[in-house]
């Protein structure tokens, strides 16, 4: 029997965002996976060049609604490095606390989605109900449930007072209890273990080769975490473990995320215990000097990399984002090789994809499949030739006439 090609997306019940996969099947077995992205491409990087730094915080925060704090922190860290501004210690702690609360909400969200993809809808309803605890907390801290706008250049925008810190501690107790319950389910529930084990297998060597990041990489035994390897904000001062697992499959990824939640609670408790008094922000110049910087941030999905180039004005010259999903996408094709068609939704969901983070560029290709890079001068020459041959307009004549010899 020949191969059958099944398109999935851009609109599909198993996908939460528009992207499309073309899956080649031999019977039930997957032979090849083709991916097509770009439905979510809005042109954030280009838009960032036309806005001031302050306006950019709000734009960059809306790159992704789930890890909004991650993107804004990574961007702000890069800009602060270019400007050479050191932020107060209390601001670093506030950034870390909000970042960790965001990780809690993101991991609980993933747990529910994963449960839904394998037909375990009770898990979805349970974990999303518990997620409301942290959502309410984030709403109380920042005034908004998802885009909290806690960051600004030079520090944090709002302080966390004593009552709020106590409230966070109480919520963490509740969440820890619930997480223990989920860990119990994940390690004892036979149906869940059997459904997830061996699905979406990717070996340690492949993970290194494909540059997989975050919980997906850690579930294949790679101990890679920007919080530990390259401490930013207040992570240098807290004690926590990088959770790894050797299952290399979807089950491993679930275990890593759940155990990571426990580490997160540990981090939050330490941060609240040690939070120093003082200012929450310092003055930040409106114009950022010329220079460039790259900043790393361990988002819930993996390492987020931002690059900012300043040119002495109040607008950046270039902003580049590398979201964790982009690093993980290549591994999805590898994971799905020789798997069943029915495993596609959960294998894709297991990297916790976020396509609004990922869709950063559009690449145009020739119909023959070859792409080429054209220099500006070349492009100019081509357009002049095109108008001369197709429309009989000779720009060189016009140029000579009006602007001298260009």
């Amino acid at each position, binding site marked *: 029997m020949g191969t059958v090609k099944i398109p999935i997306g*851009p609109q599909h019940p198993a996908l939460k965002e528009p992207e499309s996969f073309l899956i080649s099947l031999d019977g039930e077995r997957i032979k090849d996976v083709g991916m097509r992205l770009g439905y*979510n491409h809005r042109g954030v990087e280009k838009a960032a060049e036309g806005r001031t730094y302050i306006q950019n915080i709000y734009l960059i925060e809306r790159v992704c*609604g789930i890890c909004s704090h991650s993107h804004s922190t990574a961007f702000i860290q890069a800009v602060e490095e270019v400007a050479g501004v050191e932020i107060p210690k209390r601001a670093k702690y506030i950034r870390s606390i909000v970042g960790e609360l965001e990780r809690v909400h993101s991991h609980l969200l993933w747990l529910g989605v994963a449960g839904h993809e394998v037909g375990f809808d009770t898990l979805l309803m349970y974990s*999303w109900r518990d997620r409301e605890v942290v959502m309410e907390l984030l709403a109380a801290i920042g005034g908004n449930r998802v885009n909290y706008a806690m960051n600004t250049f030079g520090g944090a925008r709002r302080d966390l007072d004593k009552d709020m810190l106590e409230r966070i501690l109480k919520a963490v107790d509740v969440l820890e209890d619930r997480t223990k319950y989920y860990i119990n389910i994940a390690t004892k529930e036979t149906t869940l273990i059997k459904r997830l084990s061996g699905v979406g297998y990717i070996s340690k060597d492949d993970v290194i080769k494909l540059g997989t990041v975050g919980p997906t990489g850690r579930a294949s035994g790679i101990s890679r975490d920007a919080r530990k390897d390259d401490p930013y904000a207040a992570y240098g001062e807290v004690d926590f473990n990088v959770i790894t697992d050797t299952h290399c499959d979807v089950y491993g990824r679930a275990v890593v995320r759940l155990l990571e939640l426990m580490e997160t609670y540990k981090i939050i408790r330490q941060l609240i215990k040690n939070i120093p008094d003082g200012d929450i922000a310092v003055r930040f110049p409106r114009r950022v000097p010329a220079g460039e910087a790259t900043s790393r941030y361990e988002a819930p999905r993996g390492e987020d990399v931002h690059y900012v180039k300043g040119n002495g004005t109040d607008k950046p010259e270039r902003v580049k984002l590398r979201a964790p999903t982009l690093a993980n996408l290549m591994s999805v094709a590898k994971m799905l090789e020789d798997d069943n068609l029915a495993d596609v939704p959960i294998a894709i969901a297991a990297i916790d994809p976020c396509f609004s983070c990922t869709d950063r560029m559009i690449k145009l290709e020739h119909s023959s499949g070859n792409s080429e890079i054209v220099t500006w001068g070349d492009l100019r020459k081509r357009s002049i030739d095109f108008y001369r041959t197709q429309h009989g307009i000779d720009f060189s004549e016009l140029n000579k006439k009006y602007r001298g010899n260009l």
Partner: protein
Amino acid sequence: MKIADKIITWARTKSPWVIHFNTGACNACDIEIVDALTPLFDLERFGVLLKGTPRHADVLLCSGPVTRQIEKRLIRIYEQMPAPKFVVAVGTCACSGGVFHDCYSVKGGIDTAIPVSAYIPGCPVRPEAIIDGVVKLLSKFEADEKKRRESK
């Protein structure tokens, strides 16, 4: 005929089936839509059911600005829905393009591609606002249907 009409209107307003389509959103409105369907807010108590295909749906919940890539697909999905159909623009981006209004790859709000029946602003929209928007849309539909029947 009158009674059949009444029953159809009743069924449509008491149990609207919705489909969610992300037209280029940042995921924030999307997770709030799912939030509205999960236990704390529980839209299902109003009979709202999330469906996977546009052919089964009465209401299209769109989140995000319309990107150039998604425009054609959005129109196709809209055309696949059976009439009477409603489109709800969820979030500021869906209403007007929001923070992405001047990006080169963004066309603008949902109404630049398809007709919209209700706008729910917010960045992101709170689940309460989504519930309020859907309920308002349904009561308006009910009133319109009543008017239409009486004028017959």
